[in-house]
């Protein structure tokens, strides 16, 4: 039997599965960044950690087959979350070490 040009034609469902795994990796990345920030910046770290289940839920419960505007909104949320982490990191870089500053 000749193999198809695109390997996904053998098992088209793998595209959806790989996308779900990509969302999970992204949620894990948020968790890892939150944990890394937690030591030096407890407040910022807790905020980033709080975003982790949100990202996971976006990938798990909002279907990729949703209407285009809904898909655009959930990806915009990821961008807002990553940009928020960057803003927190810049603030942390300039104004010191979170709660430990006040001890």
């Amino acid at each position, binding site marked *: 039997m*000749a193999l*198809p*040009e*695109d390997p*996904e*034609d*053998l098992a*088209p*469902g793998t*595209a*959806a599965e*790989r*996308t779900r795994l*990509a*969302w999970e*990796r*992204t949620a894990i*990345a*948020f968790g*890892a*960044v939150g944990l*890394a*920030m937690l030591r*030096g910046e407890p407040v910022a770290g807790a905020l980033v950690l709080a975003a982790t289940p949100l990202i996971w839920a976006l990938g798990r419960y909002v279907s*990729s*087959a*949703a*209407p*285009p*505007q809904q*898909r*655009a909104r959930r*990806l*915009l949320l*990821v*961008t807002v979350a*990553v*940009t928020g*982490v*960057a*803003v927190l*990191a*810049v603030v*942390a*870089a*300039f104004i010191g*070490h979170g709660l430990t500053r006040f001890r």
Partner: protein
Amino acid sequence: MTRPPSGSATVTAPGAARTCHHGCARNSGGPGGGATSSQHGHADGEPGNPGPAADPGTGAEPDVRFTLANERTFLAWNRTALALVVAGLGIVQLLPPFPGVPWGRHALGVPLIVLGAVVSVTAYLEWRRNQTALRRSEPIPQSLLPRILVVTITGVAALSAVVLLVSAVR
């Protein structure tokens, strides 16, 4: 042209036909499957490349595998952005100060954090642009992100060499 109901899209079966906005069918899978976007005759005066603000809701629903691939690319860029942010923060907070260069850690770390935010926003704009191109059966525009990444990381590498040299001289 009949647009498939967007809420009912499922992974397309092997060899399933795609329809472009003209209603002409093209084969999205299987050996010898159909014309590529660049071969596809669209000479009705449409813009070649959709701009960053292009609406991803226009045109016909593409093969869901292309939509998913576009989404995975967006997510991969965002993980890269998070890695840049955490690298920048690590430089500022974990490295010992450079002797004689008190601004050294901030000069190296903050650009990486800012680059993380830029990569994330650009990834979203490019996702929109690519989705619009897919829906219009147009070629995918070239990505700006590799260029932005190369220029900034090269700049930060050069700056770190300068900081190390200045620190060694003082």
